[in-house]
């Protein structure tokens, strides 16, 4: 068990190295493009260019350039955005990350709870109107793009019906830190949570239902019924528990990519200064240091989340425990 965890950790480090090298090569070592000019920004003076070249070691071999970049990113953390007049990149991400994490965690709680409920109820009532209704609802959720849904909710809650009793509590767009005002934090985020969660509720409930229905034909489900257990117990303790293996792997990936910046559209629509929005800005300005930093941040999250999912697997599925 311990060995398995250590090995997983080693793999994680290796994957992170691979990603960082790849991103570095794509953005800084593309033949024919001088990264110095890009980092320095448009119309930079020759002095600035020279300073950048010295700082990043662009006149030295590639491995040195890579090492310098990693050092500036992880050790000295003084990687600065030239486009944005020397704003330090790492603290910028550190400021954006809590926003994204707040948004994604809240949405995740909503979508996990609702999709498990919906999927299980639909599977239990397979073939009935309730099942069909819930699955239709799920499909509707999947079909609505998050930016459209976000804009529509904004339209309703922020302008058209803002003065009615129903939506007068809705604060203006933006983020309130949890440490400052927990109630404000909640109010600012509850609508973005729901909007972000809706698509995932649709996907997850449909996947879970399909999984449960497929499992109901399994031998062990028949055994459970032959034991004289109640249908609820068969469905929850045997079916749902086994389905969780699939569910968790799916969840791990989605959660990680959202925390890593995948909630970009929701963040932009609701004016939340999260990592997704930061990445978006970096890309529009071609702010190379910031791109490097956000991509690394996102990669760290995806890889870490994968590691966490794998570790969760060890707990959820005894077969995996022994296979390693």
């Amino acid at each position, binding site marked *: 068990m311990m060995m398995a965890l250590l090995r997983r950790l080693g793999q994680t480090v290796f994957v992170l190295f691979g990603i960082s090298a790849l991103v570095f090569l794509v953005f800084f070592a593309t033949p024919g493009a001088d990264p110095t000019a890009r980092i320095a920004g448009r119309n930079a003076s020759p002095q600035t260019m020279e300073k950048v070249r010295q700082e990043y070691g662009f006149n030295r071999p590639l491995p040195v350039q890579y090492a310098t970049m990693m050092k500036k990113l992880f050790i000295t953390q003084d990687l600065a955005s030239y486009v944005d007049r020397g704003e330090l990149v790492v603290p910028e991400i550190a400021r954006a990350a809590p926003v994204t994490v707040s948004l994604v965690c809240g949405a995740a709680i909503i979508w996990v709870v609702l999709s498990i409920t919906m999927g299980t109820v639909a599977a239990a009532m397979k073939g009935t109107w309730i099942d069909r209704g819930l699955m239709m609802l799920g499909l509707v959720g999947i079909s609505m793009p998050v930016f459209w849904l976000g804009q529509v909710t904004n339209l309703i809650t922020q302008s058209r019906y803002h003065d009615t009793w129903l939506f007068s509590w809705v604060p203006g767009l933006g983020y309130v830190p949890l440490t400052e005002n927990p109630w404000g934090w909640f109010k600012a985020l509850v609508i973005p949570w729901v909007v972000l969660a809706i698509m995932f509720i649709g996907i997850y409930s449909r996947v879970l239902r399909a999984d449960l229905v497929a499992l109901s034909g399994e*031998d*062990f489900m028949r*055994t459970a019924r032959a*034991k*004289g*257990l*109640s*249908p609820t117990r068969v469905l929850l303790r*045997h079916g749902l528990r086994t389905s969780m293996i699939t569910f968790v792997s799916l969840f791990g990936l989605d959660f990680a990519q959202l925390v890593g910046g995948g909630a970009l559209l929701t963040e932009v629509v609701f004016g939340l200064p999260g990592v997704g929005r930061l990445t978006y800005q970096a890309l529009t300005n071609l702010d190379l240091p910031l791109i490097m930093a956000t991509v690394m941040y996102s990669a760290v999250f995806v890889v870490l989340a994968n590691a966490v999912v794998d570790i969760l697997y060890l707990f959820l599925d005894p*077969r995996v425990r022994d296979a390693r």
Partner: protein
Amino acid sequence: MPADTPRSNPTSSAPLLVVQDLCVSFPSRGRMIPIVEHVSFTLGERDILGLVGESGSGKSVTAMALMGLIDSPGVQITGSALFRGQELVGLPQKQLRRLRGREIAMIFQDPMTAFTPVYTIGWQIDEQIRAHERLSRKQARARTVSLLAEMGVPDPARTADRYPHQLSGGLRQRAMIAMALSCNPSLLIADEPTTALDVTVQAQILELIRSLRSTYGSSVLLITHDMGVVAETCDTTLVLYSGRVAETGPTEALFAHPGHPYTAALLASIPPLDGPRPHRLPAIAGAPPAPLERPAGCAFAPRCTYVHASCLPAPPPPLVPTGSDTMIVQRTVTDTSSLESVDPTDQTRPCTTTHNTLTEQSFSETTISRPTQLSACVLPAEGTPLPPGLKNTVPAPGEAVTTTQILSPPTSSASGGPQL
């Protein structure tokens, strides 16, 4: 409460399970497909009844219907199955659930997949015990461990804490049997319990099942497609073909003198252990009919070498008893539940389906004489050449298809089948 028939004083003479005219049909594309047709049998206390047939002959469906485990929408189950006088067909799920696991337990074919993979064996056995009896976790586990020990599981306390995938097939099947027996059921349905196991383990598991009736007083309904298993284990045998009963009777009599050509052909296709080897092992030509294409008359007729004009038209030939008691019983089609006596000397009656006399004695004491009153489709006397049909399935290259095969006389030594 009807579900709680006191276990201690069962009516000693009444059989444990009486199945009458059980039919199971599944809907498909707007019509009902009969999978099991008019299956009847009786299982006494401490009896082992073998339900034999090829894949798709309806063995498992019969068992699942008895357990009330068929829940596909639109399925139609008719007939009657009296378990200790209680009707199982049409019993509400809630009451069935009380019987399941507690009064009627089931052992499944593949122990690899029959346990939930994410829980330990012990947890799953405890679960069944606690579903039916008010016991603490500790008490349940204690019983689980002692059950596993009785089933011959080494180091039962540790085995109980292992996951299904960590155990060998044989151990898993023992655990499965322990689970089935955990609430001391009076009827155990074993659905091909040894099919997924290798031969040595198979023999051990069969030995275990045989011993259950003395140690636990259980009756067993053993479903299998292995004639060897039946010969070794069962008191009574019922041969199913394409959802219909082909033949039923005490195992020894049935093996010694198969009355139905299908039974005979099945027995003939067991390689003999001693005596002259047949040049080629006889096999039954063709394949069993799909339920939709089941012939109107005798279902075996298209593959039968003794087929005869009266076998073909609907309805399927009725069950006829053979043996020393020569009374012929005919099941009329209009009133399927009643049994009607017919003149025993009626030689015109088609008797594709024969019925060895059921005796109350154990088979070793019974001597069953061959019936003399059976018409066309009775097997020829021993040594008579078999007509084409019981022929080799694959002729050797350059060799003409063998048209005659001597059916090795089904003697009592052959009744052992391959000794497993």
